[in-house]
């Protein structure tokens, strides 16, 4: 059924359709509306049987999910930013124990300085913890990915985090197609765990494993993700068969997200295709098949980039975009194939590997090893700085004219940076960076919105 609702609500309702038995949540901006909606559904009896546990921290949230899942219950939690870090130890525990928990990460920057706005630094910081990571481009995509996530997680016995841009998606009200309970019930059978704490068949979970077996156990987590490279496309196709559309596809209109090789035509408003069936759900592509310059990105910014691509194409610029939905496992083959013909690749990312540069770019480099395309990294949108079409156009103009440096920071105010560096050089006790800069720019700016 078509609804005009907030992204958080869409996700909460989709999760509820999956019939979780234990929901455990600790509030953190910008995830709060998700867990509030679920609390309402449980308290009102619409989601039952379900235990809603108000935990005392994110670490407790993931721990409760671990206990619940190990007991054979379908479990769910959501967090962001600092909360994700706080549960980091438990994330590794969940993946190491092979527990198919599904979690929403409402992507938000990590402090210091404290910042509640969107970027990808939180989920990126946990990219190697063994969780599958899927990035949503729209609210439709987000809700669909959660429904896919449970199927994927339980098939593989591996946890899945669905990442959606905090505020930008969570707090945006837009149209979504919400599946029916009957459709989701048909899609998602009851949770049949690979292991379960059961007095009738006692098992020990969580033994210490020494050098004699640790590598093998750890490899199995990796093997599951390699398996996921095949499972994700298959689940994406099964999703289309079950729900009549690709994940993220806007019903009733053009402009889709999600793969599966639909019509393959990139018209002015055209369908976003995922290429052949084996890349469905792993990546999306838009007007990239013949593009000289391809932008690679994750999450909601892809939509803005697609609009920019349309404008530039109309002006004769050969540009396209490849969106990465599955960041872990990283779809090396799919990315390599999608970028094969490009002269230049611009990886636009909302996170920074401090001391190195781009994180996604690093992964893309690996995918393109041996290829001759120029790869540029553009760090953008950190801490919620909006990524605007005008800046994308300017950046792409530079790229196409081969003026773009290897690593750039979009819309960076270098004056501010320089002033602070001067302060640091001038005095040892120069004070905290953030406070100095805020004083510099004034706390209430009468500037553009």
């Amino acid at each position, binding site marked *: 059924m078509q609804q005009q609702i907030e992204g958080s609500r869409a996700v909460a309702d989709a999760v509820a359709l999956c019939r979780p*038995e*234990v929901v*455990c949540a600790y509030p953190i901006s910008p995830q709060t509306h998700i867990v509030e909606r679920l609390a309402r559904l449980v308290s009102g009896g619409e989601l039952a*049987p*379900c*235990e809603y*546990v*108000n*935990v*005392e*921290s994110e*670490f*407790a949230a993931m*721990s*409760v*999910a*671990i*206990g*619940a*899942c*190990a*007991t*054979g*219950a379908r*479990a769910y939690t959501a967090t962001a930013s600092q909360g994700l870090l706080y549960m980091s*130890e*438990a994330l590794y*525990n969940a993946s190491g*124990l092979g527990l198919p928990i599904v979690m929403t990460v409402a992507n938000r920057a990590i402090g210091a300085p404290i910042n509640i706005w969107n970027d990808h630094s939180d989920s990126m910081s946990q990219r190697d913890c063994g969780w599958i990571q899927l990035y949503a481009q729209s609210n439709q995509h987000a809700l669909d990915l959660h429904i896919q996530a449970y199927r994927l997680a339980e098939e593989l016995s591996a946890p899945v985090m669905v990442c959606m841009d905090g505020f930008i998606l969570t707090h945006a009200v837009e149209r979504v197609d919400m599946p029916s309970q009957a459709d989701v019930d048909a899609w998602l059978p009851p949770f049949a765990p690979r292991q379960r*704490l*059961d*007095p009738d*068949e*006692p*098992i*020990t*979970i*969580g*033994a*210490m*494993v*020494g050098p*004699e*077996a640790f590598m093998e156990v750890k490899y199995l987590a990796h093997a599951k993700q390699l398996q996921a490279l095949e499972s994700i496309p298959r689940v994406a196709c099964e999703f289309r068969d079950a729900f009549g559309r690709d994940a993220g596809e806007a019903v009733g209109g053009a402009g889709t997200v999600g793969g599966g090789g639909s019509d393959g035509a990139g018209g002015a408003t055209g369908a976003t295709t995922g290429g052949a069936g084996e890349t469905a759900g792993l990546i999306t592509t838009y007007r990239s098949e013949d593009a000289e310059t391809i932008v690679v990105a994750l999450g909601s910014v892809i939509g803005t980039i697609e609009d920019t691509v349309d404008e530039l194409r109309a002006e004769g610029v050969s540009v396209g975009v490849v969106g990465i939905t599955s960041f872990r496992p990283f779809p090396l083959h799919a990315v390599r194939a999608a970028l094969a013909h490009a002269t230049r690749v611009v990886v636009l990312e909302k996170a920074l590997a401090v001391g190195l540069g781009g994180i996604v770019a690093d992964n893309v480099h690996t995918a393109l090893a041996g290829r001759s395309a120029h790869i540029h990294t553009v760090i953008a949108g950190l801490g919620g700085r909006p990524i605007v079409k005008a800046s994308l156009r300017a950046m792409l103009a530079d790229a196409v004219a081969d003026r773009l440096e290897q690593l750039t920071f979009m819309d960076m105010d270098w004056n501010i940076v320089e002033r602070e560096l001067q302060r640091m050089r001038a005095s040892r006790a120069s004070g905290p960076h953030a406070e100095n800069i805020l004083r510099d720019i004034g706390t209430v700016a009468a500037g553009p919105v």
Partner: protein
Amino acid sequence: MSPASTIRFYQTGSIAVGNRLLDPDQRSVQADEQRSNAITCGHRACQGCGEALGARYALDAAMRATGGRMIAANATGCLEVFSTPYPESSWRLPWIHSLFANAPAVSTGIAAALRAKGLDRDIRVVGQGGDGGTVDIGMACLSGMFERGDDVLYICYDNEAYMNTGVQRSGATPPAARTTTTPAVGPAPGASFTQGKSAPLIAMAHEIPYVATATVAELRDLEAKVATAMTMRGPRYLHVFVPCPLGWGSDPRETIHVARLAQQSGLFPVFEAHDGEVTGVTPIRRQVPVEDYLRTQARFAHLFKPQPHTETIARIQAQADRNIRRFGLLPDVQGGS
């Protein structure tokens, strides 16, 4: 029954008291050949380990009380490490070890899952951890579990330091005790004198249905308290005193004796509390000065070399005396100060 039979038994053994056999229903769970052996033999605990002893008694009592329908969650620590040397496991009940700090939260998750599945009347949950995993790093999760009223019995085995990692100080380490991070050097050797962190009192402050302390010197009492706890629902907390011969530098053969001295000196009060109020104490039968207890352990040896540190020992005695006053542990002393 003749008057001779109405003798008060102060210390019953597993199957006998003095020279007479106990009635079967008064025997320890350990006397039962059909006991669950929830933590069975072959684990790698040290000789004389108080925790292994306490865990065995506590868990078999819990299994009997629950008809074997139980799931256990365990924090990282000695108990977890010595019981699961890969590829072996001592556990004969469903058991999960997750992390160091989260045993109470994992227990909450298990209880929630059982409730969602309508199995909570049938299957019970026990959380376990050492003092470190309970009193320090696990305190937030423990408090959360208490506050929410989750249906979990949590048992803390208190050997008063981080033993598994090599005897470092914890929030439960008593004043003046030597650990590797509170070495016996300098003007105030050993752990500092602080007001301490009493997990049982903290549990009582949460006003949960049942809080009790127990000791391996009173194994029957430990069993009885576990059985009592399992008649109730909601959060219940059991704090068990378990000497660690290795970490304390005590004779492995004397573990129970050392524990008894701790109790009889007043340093470890044995009591029960319901809904935040003390409802029963085990009185001290024969009080001993704290010095008798301290001398049994190398971790306090520096208090007696080259001369006794009378001031420090007096301060420790004062703590014991305060416990005696506070809980009314001596017959002529009413509790409550």
